[in-house]
Structures are given as structure tokens and as C-alpha cells.
């Protein structure tokens, strides 16, 4: 039996951590990432709307801007 036979086998290389399956425990909205989630195959950064045009229109109706007629009232 040669010395080489006594040596323990070299362990198999571990999985590629970057390319392996998604092992994250916490679900994350890709829109909260400041970059595309390439592990999910996204090529562009996901996004979410902050305000919609209808919402902006509704808000503009309730704003009472500083005007001359408002002064002193």
C-alpha cells in the first residue's frame, strides 16, 4: 500500500456560493435593492411607484398655498 493510498480523499469542492440556489431566509422585495437582483435573473433594477398621478392631484387640492388673500386671515 503506497503512502498516497493512506491519505484521506480530498473533499469535493463546495458549491459556488454566488451561483447556487437562493438560500436567503428573508423574503425581500427586489425593489428595495439599490441594484438588480441578478440571482433572480433581473437585468434591471426593480422599482416601485412612490406616488401616482391621481394621488398627486388629490394632494394638490388640499394644499392651501401662501397667497396674498391668505395673509392675515
Amino acid at each position, binding site marked *: 500500500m503506497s503512502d498516497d493510498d493512506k491519505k484521506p480523499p480530498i473533499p469535493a469542492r463546495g458549491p459556488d456560493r454566488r451561483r447556487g440556489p437562493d438560500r436567503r431566509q428573508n423574503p425581500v422585495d427586489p425593489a428595495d435593492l439599490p441594484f438588480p437582483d441578478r440571482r433572480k435573473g433581473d437585468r434591471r433594477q426593480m422599482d416601485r411607484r412612490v406616488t401616482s398621478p391621481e394621488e398627486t392631484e388629490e394632494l394638490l387640492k388640499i*394644499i392651501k398655498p401662501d397667497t396674498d388673500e391668505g395673509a392675515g386671515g
Partner: protein
Amino acid sequence: MIIDPYHHPADTMTAEAEVTMRRSTFAVASGKGGTGKSTFAINLSMALAALGHEVILVDADLGGADLSTLLGIHAPRYTLKDFIQGDVSYLPEILEPTPSPHLRLICGGTDIISVSNPYYQQKVKLIRALAQLQADYIVVDLGPDITFNNLDFFNAAPVGFLVTQNMDAMILGFYRFLKAAFVRRLKQEFRNESYILSIISDFQNRGWSHARRDLIGSIRAASREAQKHLDAVLETFQPKLVFNMVESPAARKTADQMFSFILENFGFRLQTVGFIPRDRDVEKAYARNEPYLLRFPRSAASKALYEVLAACGLNYTRDGVRVSGFSDFLAYVKVEVPGWNLLKI
């Protein structure tokens, strides 16, 4: 430090959420440039320092830091750039003294563009270091835009001030910032509950006419635990709104309308804590890089600032003595003035 820009924030969000800043950390945001946010942050810090509190003012406007200039400090030894890039490992080392014995400044770094866009880990490192600073009050002046950086700093601080003016663009700006911060806070709070996260994502994707009022009601209806958790979030998410450069009583009507609109649609209370009038004295002091509270202590803006302190329950000296009126407050402010060597007008 090895930085992996693609390291997933989900792993560090948990760590960040555990970093609870002391209750006396104030973030000052606006959602729109030009509202007077930095001027408010400086004078708020100055007022607290005049009452004897140890105050640290942090210039976290990572893309457009200017507090050092506004305080007449033109060549700071260190800036946040030195800490973010690791040249200085201990945040207190970069504290810059000011003429006030009780006010110190952490200058922002604008000389390198990458400081404006720190990696997530650098941001968490900074938030953690801020939480460990030793002071009675820490005032963090944020950038005006809706970025993940500003939203995370705003949410990390227990008390958030929003400075706005009674103009369409400014109100819309602060509303967008506030809504984005609230939704991000909800996502962090419910990060382990995929069903709630899907409700929040639906809310963000659907049209306003369908989505409004659905968010809070749907989360409440999900489970008893979710309802309790949401109520706890709504209890603590109570930003304070300051109207700046006010020219008419119309701002009070806008404040009332915004309070009702936000309570109805998002379930949290937006507390308006002050109306600082448009004041020529503020502009004069600004032009000289001086806090208006010191240059013009008797100005209408200084009086309104005292009223903000009182509305927030901050009108106490470090020894716990209540400062019950503007004239009493002036006595404390005047003690600070000689040290600042204000320019002759």
C-alpha cells in the same frame, strides 16, 4: 474591510433594525431641496446647546454637505469621508469643535463622489457608530432627496423632523419622502412575513384609487399578531412637521389637511410642531454663515424656533429646569453669543 456590493441587504437589514438609536437622536429631512432644512438643523442644535445640552450635529447630506460652511468652519480636519472610507475607525475622532462649548459637528464629505453613494455595509457601519456617540442630543441633517440612504437614516432615528414650505412642490416633496420612509419602515418591520410583504408590494403597484386605505386595513386583517405589530409601528412612527418661511395663516390649514389625509390613508399621526415665519433676519444671518438664533435672537424666526422646542417638550435645560417663556430662553441664548465672534453688520 472586504466590501461586496452585491451582498444582500436582507442579511444586514436585520442587524440594522437591531440598532436602536437613543431616543434623543433627531433626523432632519425635507424631501425637497431649498426648504431651509439645514438652517433649521443648525439652529435647533444651537438652541439645545444654549440650554446646556451636549449636542452633536451630523451632516449626513452625503451628496451635498454644507453645514461646516454654514457654521463658518471652512477647513475641517476630518469629514465623514474619512470614517466611511476607513481612514478613521472611531467616529468621535472626527468631531469638530464649534465656538459653542456644547456643540460639536461631524462634517460631511463632499470631496469624493463615492461618499455620496456608500455601500450598504458602510451605511450600516455609520448608523451603528452614530448610535454609540456620547451626547445628550444628536441632530442628523439628511440630504433632500428620496434615496435609500436618506430613508434608512430617517427610519433609524427615533425622532424625525420634516421641514417644508407651504408651496405645492415642497409639500409634494415632503409627502413623497414621508410615504417612502413609512413603506420602507413597514417592509423592515414585516421582513419575515411574506404575506404582509406581498400586501405592501401590491399597495405600491396598484393605482391610488384602488390602493388607498387598503394598506393598513389589509395588514390589520391578516392576523392578530400583524395587527399588534402594526399598531406598535404606528405608535412610534410620528414624524414632526415644521413649516418654514411661512407667509400667511394658510400654512395652518395645509397642516390640518395633511394631518387628516395621512391619518386616513396611512394610519399614523403627523404632528406639526411649528411655523417659522419668513424673516429677513434669517436671510441676513444665512448670508454671513451665522446661526440666526445667535445673530438675531429676538427675531420672529428665533421666537418660532423656541415654540418648536416647547411643542416638542425640549424646553428644558440640562439640569432639568423648564424654560417657560421666550424671554427666559433668550437669557440662555445670549450667553452663547460672545464665543461666536459674529461679524459686524
